[in-house]
């Protein structure tokens, strides 16, 4: 046993040709967030606190599709959603349709701790945010130039994009620097377990590029994008609609519980057998301190560390050992 932590910045069609100026800041951000999480675990913070603070950090980083840097709806606006769950108690909190809250994951936690409900959305969630006095800003705070570009691309291609989709190749159109293979951002999430087997998970996102206003994805759906119980904690990323119909996060835990699979086996089964290729990634930790990061997409921004010193930060599949 021992503590373990894993985090992700989204799974998708991340091309190997990703230019260094796009790749390096994102890797650095993963490393930074991993360090913060590890420090907190070493300081004996409860995993619920650890996953919240790591996801807050990821939300604040504009390179990732959560909080600031969220992708845009078809109306050019930001609608954020997030979810947090505690493994031992299965208490959870979720929010959707946020437009002014700087840290959606913290509002999700407040829903869990300060209301008798699990899930608040849109105007009701915003009103709750004001009651709770959380930090709110003008909606323009969350919008980045990159995301305006992504939305334009998607509208031109007339489709809703999982944010890692490669830009549509137009015949002779010279791609702008920003559009060059650069839809590589995604949902963020973090899972953690401490020495006592306390488990927690947190996920946060802006959703799909060019999504319909009011579209809810897998992130705030307990059992789909986010789930934790006494066995494990899971955070998923990818095409929300596939994660929902695959009840991905719950299935990892269910395979462990009902079929006796190990954490790694369960995660591998879900991404390889139960969900369509190119759509899903996840990070998970078990009560006994194991960690796994699995995906069936080209890549997934991810990082993990365990108490016995193992560390991994990556984007594409690791070479098979």
């Amino acid at each position: 046993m021992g503590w373990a932590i894993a985090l992700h910045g989204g799974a998708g069609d991340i091309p190997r040709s990703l230019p260094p100026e796009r790749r390096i800041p994102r890797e650095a951000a993963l490393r930074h967030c991993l360090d913060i999480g590890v420090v907190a675990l070493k300081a004996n913070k409860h995993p619920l606190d650890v996953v919240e603070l790591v996801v807050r950090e990821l939300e604040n980083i504009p390179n990732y599709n959560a909080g600031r840097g969220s992708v845009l709806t078809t109306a050019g606006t930001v609608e954020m959603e997030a979810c947090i769950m505690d493994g031992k108690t299965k208490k959870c909190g979720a929010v959707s349709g946020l437009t002014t809250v700087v840290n959606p994951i913290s509002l999700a936690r407040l829903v869990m701790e300060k209301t008798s409900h699990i899930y608040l959305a849109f105007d009701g969630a915003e009103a709750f945010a004001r009651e709770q006095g959380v930090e709110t800003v003008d909606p323009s705070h969350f919008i980045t130039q990159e995301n305006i570009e992504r939305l334009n691309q998607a509208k031109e291609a007339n489709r809703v994009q999982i944010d890692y989709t490669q830009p549509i190749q137009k015949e002779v159109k010279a791609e702008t620097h920003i559009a060059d293979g650069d839809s590589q951002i995604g949902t963020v999430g973090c899972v953690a377990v401490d020495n006592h087997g306390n488990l927690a998970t947190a996920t946060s996102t802006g959703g799909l590029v060019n999504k319909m206003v009011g579209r809810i994805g897998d992130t705030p759906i307990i059992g789909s994008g986010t789930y934790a119980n006494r066995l494990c904690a899971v955070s998923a990323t990818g095409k929300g609609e596939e994660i929902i119909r695959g009840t991905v996060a719950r299935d990892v835990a269910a395979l462990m519980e009902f079929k006796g699979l190990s954490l790694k086996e369960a995660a591998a089964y879900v991404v390889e057998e139960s969900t369509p290729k190119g759509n899903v990634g996840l990070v998970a930790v078990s009560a006994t301190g194991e960690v796994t990061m699995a995906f069936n997409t080209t890549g997934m921004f991810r990082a993990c560390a365990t108490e016995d010193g193992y560390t991994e930060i990556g984007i594409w599949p690791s070479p098979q050992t």
Partner: protein
Amino acid sequence: MGGWAIAVHGGAGVDPNLPAHRQEEAKKLLTHCLEIGISALRSNLPAIDIVELVVRELETDPLFNSGRGSALTAKGTVEMEASIMDGTKRRCGAVSGVTTVKNPISLARLVMEKSPHSYLAFSGAEEFAREQGVETVENEYFITEENVGMLKLAKEANSILFDYRIPNPIESCSAGAAATDSPLQMNGLPISLYAPETVGCVVVDSEGRCAAATSTGGLVNKMTGRIGDSPIIGAGTYACDLCGVSCTGEGEAIIRGTLAREVAAVMEYKGLNLQQAVDFVIKEKLDQGFAGLIAVSKNGEVTCGFNTNGMFRGCATENGFMDVGIWN
């Protein structure tokens, strides 16, 4: 194959003192809905069509807590939610925060079939409804006098309540009173103040295809924007090749227990049959929570399970079995 089967529910958790005429009304509506479903099954409509049309009927009737007759939010308005799932290919659709759409379950179906998404909510769902040309009405249409009365009681008791058909005498609702005359409690409140009436339907058709649909107005006096289990795929609603499930009761417990998916998961991963799966889930996966569910399997089995005091439900199978009930 085992033939077709259908089940409907109108909510789990019933006041043991519910007057006889209210019980009759409920049973009559459940029977009527079963008959509509059975007729459709005999016409060889697919399961997905049948769960939708049965739930539409339940939404339209003001008796239970869905569509017209929905419980009211703290602001005295109606915010409805629903979800539907087709076991074949596990397609799904859900809506929340619906305020003018006459039949939320049909909007959920349109999300599944006519949008690139699985779940739309609030103004986005309403906008989609207009684009799709579904029937819309003023929010007032959904509000019934009984529910206005219920909200008033809930505010006086200063608590979140599930829908309760029979307004209780004021003395039982004195502010801060957690004690109750009735020994039965649910969600920490006297059961006399608690009777959730989410509606749902599950069907397996003669081709062995399963489907599930659930619809609700949610909790009395809920915060605006509160979403419960009914639109959450895997919680209130789930269908796959093996089965179709619709749940009702304490939303928070159903979500935490991923109840509907749980039934299918133990069938799939533990090899339990439908009855074993339902019994297992109700017994082991609700912790301190109270809920009920109906379920069908691709083999033509149908069952219900609940740990509440009663559940409004009915079921029928192709070989002529039919049962409508409230109590254990």
